[in-house]
């Protein structure tokens, strides 16, 4: 099959091909989604190396055992795979230590900002990361899925395996806590 055709294929088609052993389809799927799943894992583990390892592990498990993806049971690949990545993050957390603040520098939102503004923003970001890290696990996941990944509330609820109301409640509680703890910065 011509290489130019791969980006045109949707996730479902690629997964069917992966189940037939297609390395090209797997490569396309990995290129398409690595960044977004890395971001989610990074929010969880706060370490670039660990997040990369988790995403790699998740994709390799999919390759090794493509039968785990069952289109009739899982409607959307990304929703299902978010859950896979989250589960791997939780496993990692259970085995390892509590999440620490990132040792890498958080990139500034806009590098053209004046230095003082940029410093304040950096401070705010650091504080926010710290407070989000201190939130209960489910509240943190709900925030990450809705604000970072831009998932709709319904999709985020599906990833977390809760109903829509429960998700909205998690987000609301997380926001109330953050507002309380970030008073000085808001």
């Amino acid at each position, binding site marked *: 099959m011509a290489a130019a055709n791969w980006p045109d294929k949707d996730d479902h088609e690629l997964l069917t091909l992966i189940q037939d*052993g297609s*390395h090209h389809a*797997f*490569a396309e799927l*990995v*290129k398409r989604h*690595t*960044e977004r799943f*890395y*971001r989610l894992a*990074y*929010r969880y583990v706060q370490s*670039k190396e660990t*997040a*990369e390892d988790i*995403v*790699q592990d998740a*994709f*390799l498990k999919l*390759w*090794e*055992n*493509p*039968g785990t993806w069952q289109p009739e049971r899982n409607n959307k690949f990304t929703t299902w795979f978010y859950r896979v990545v989250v589960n791997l993050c939780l496993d990692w957390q259970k085995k390892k230590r509590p999440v620490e603040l*990132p040792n*890498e*520098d*958080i*990139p*500034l*939102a806009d590098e053209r900002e004046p230095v003082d503004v940029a410093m304040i923003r950096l401070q*705010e*970001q650091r504080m*926010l*990361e710290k407070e989000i890290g201190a939130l209960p696990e489910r509240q943190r996941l709900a*925030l990450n899925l809705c*604000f*970072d990944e831009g998932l709709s509330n319904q999709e985020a609820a599906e990833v977390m395996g809760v109903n829509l109301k429960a998700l909205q409640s998690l987000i609301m509680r997380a*926001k*109330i806590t*953050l*507002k309380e703890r*970030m008073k000085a*910065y*808001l």
Partner: protein
Amino acid sequence: MSDKQDEKLEMLLRSRRATPASPELAARIILKAQGIPQVRATSFWQWLRQLCAEYHLPKPAYVLASALILGLVIGFSTAGDITSPADTNPINIQGFLYADEGPL
């Protein structure tokens, strides 16, 4: 809590940045997968489909087999209708056979 605080918090949440992944992460995953064989767990239906594919017959064979099965089914289902209740009574048959042999 004021709306202004809400807005600021939303803005902060939406402007969060993560350390980007290594540019070669995707390539690394793809490369690693090259050396890993796939495990193929086959369900019962997959196994049945494979079996059918293996013993694939030309269409006329299916038609013949279907006709044979249909014939057998029809044959068995109508077998009871051919014999009348009279046939099953041996006394009636005897009566019929000896009907003309009365005393002369």
